[in-house]
């Protein structure tokens, strides 16, 4: 479990989601990265019912990651989070009276997984109710656990295949209580995905990209 950065890549001019993903794959293969299978990250939204009126409905997000296939993560935006095993989904069904599944809001990112030296790169198409909404790129530098140490190194690597559209330091690292010098863990990765998915949900459907 290394330092991970998740970012959204804008579409190349005049190209569709799939074409931009193909361009990224080609750039990675030019760097001699090796494809190592596929990955999936998905996020389901639950509305908490039974709140006192006047308060905004709290949203519970339940996320799964193919890197940790036996666990799932439940979190409130900006609030506490819980790591549980796969049976948590079944539990949520049993808790139907308290948490209602917003079925149309399921967002997922699916794509290929590449390995380059000690880096793991995942390029995925973000889809919401089977319409492609964008491209997510996750870069993980496995040997290092402290984000503050390797951020410049990761930026240099991302520049080599993403070109000018490199992201800034993820807010999840900047807002930690001890700053950048604490070990990163998988909750940070999922928080970044959650931010990306929330952004994608608020976006309009991209023109001409229904699939």
């Amino acid at each position, binding site marked *: *479990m*290394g330092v991970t950065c998740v970012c959204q890549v804008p579409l190349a001019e005049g190209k569709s989601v799939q074409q931009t993903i193909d361009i990224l794959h080609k750039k990675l293969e030019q760097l001699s990265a090796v494809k190592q299978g596929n990955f999936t990250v998905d996020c389901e939204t639950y509305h908490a019912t039974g709140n006192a009126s006047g308060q905004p409905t709290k949203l519970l997000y339940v996320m799964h990651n193919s890197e940790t296939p036996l666990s799932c993560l439940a979190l409130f935006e900006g609030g506490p989070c819980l790591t549980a095993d796969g049976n948590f989904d079944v539990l949520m069904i049993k808790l139907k009276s308290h948490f209602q599944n917003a079925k149309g809001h399921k967002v997922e990112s699916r794509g290929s997984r590449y390995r*380059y*030296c*000690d*880096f793991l790169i995942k390029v995925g198409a973000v889809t919401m109710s089977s319409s492609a909404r964008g491209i997510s790129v996750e870069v993980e*530098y*496995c*040997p*290092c*656990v*402290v984000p503050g*140490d*390797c951020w*410049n*190194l990761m930026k*240099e*690597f991302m520049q*080599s295949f993403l070109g000018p559209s490199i992201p800034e330091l993820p807010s999840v690292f900047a807002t930690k209580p001890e700053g950048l*010098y604490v*070990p990163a863990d998988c909750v940070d990765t999922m928080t970044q995905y959650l931010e990306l998915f929330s952004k994608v949900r608020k976006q309009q459907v991209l023109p001409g990209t229904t699939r």
Partner: protein
Amino acid sequence: MADAMNVGVNLEAFSQAINAIQALRSSVTRVFDSLKDGMKNKETLEGREKVFITEFQDNLQSVNRDLNELERLSTLVGRPSESHPLHNSGLLSLDPVQDKTPLYSQLLQAYKWSNKLQYHAGLASSLLNQQSLKRSANQMGASAKRRPKVQPSTLVLPPQYVDDVISRIGRMFPDMSIELFRPNGTSAVLLVTLGKVLKAIVVMRSLFIDRTIVRGFSENVYSEDGKLDIWSKSNYQVFQKVTDHATTALLHYQLPQMPDVVVRSFMTWLRSYIKLFQTPCQRCGKFLQEGLPPTWRDFRTLEAFHDTCRQ
């Protein structure tokens, strides 16, 4: 066939002798055939007997003739020369089935290879002996017979002294913690944790560093039975590279008479890896080269270089 064997063998006489054997066999066969056929049909009994006996005598005489011829030729054939004795291995070459059991040719190749190996090993040892490779101080290594059992003084140090030296070095550096274990006898095994960057396992032999292996901070240093795992390599290429460099360093820092200075220098060098992921290469200015950060630390100046950028 084999040139070495036939110095005394007359090939002509040999082939003639083989022919003579065939002639002898056929004449003996004729004898038994005539006996089997019995008497031929003639008018009188005497006539039949006479013809039979004449034929029988002729056959026996031809057998006698052939046998004499064979004896004469056998004296001419001669003996295989004894000047190139191959003993048992030579017998392997006499009647092989070359396709299925090429034993003799493989045997020859094996001998040639081992002779070459011996020769090269001799050359290598004479070259290596020119420079002393002993890292420990030796007293009078000249006459091994007079002092066979004296160990170099620096190799036999009390474990308490080793513990003291290590703990003193551990206190020198605040961001580096050194834990000492003795899982197998008196050799110390150190677990050096450098900040949140890496963990190094250093196997010692009294105060000399024998071997080192470097793994990431998040990797497991213990094996399944709870002991320190001193053999498995790191999962990450960057730390495999750092392990190689650390091995180079422990061979570089040598001072036979003062091993504690050596350990201190090695630890100072290792400590420079606290900023493994933060420092760019001094030569090319970049962070990554082929996916690796600058893993080489110069032995004198402790500057960071990529493995391919160092002089």
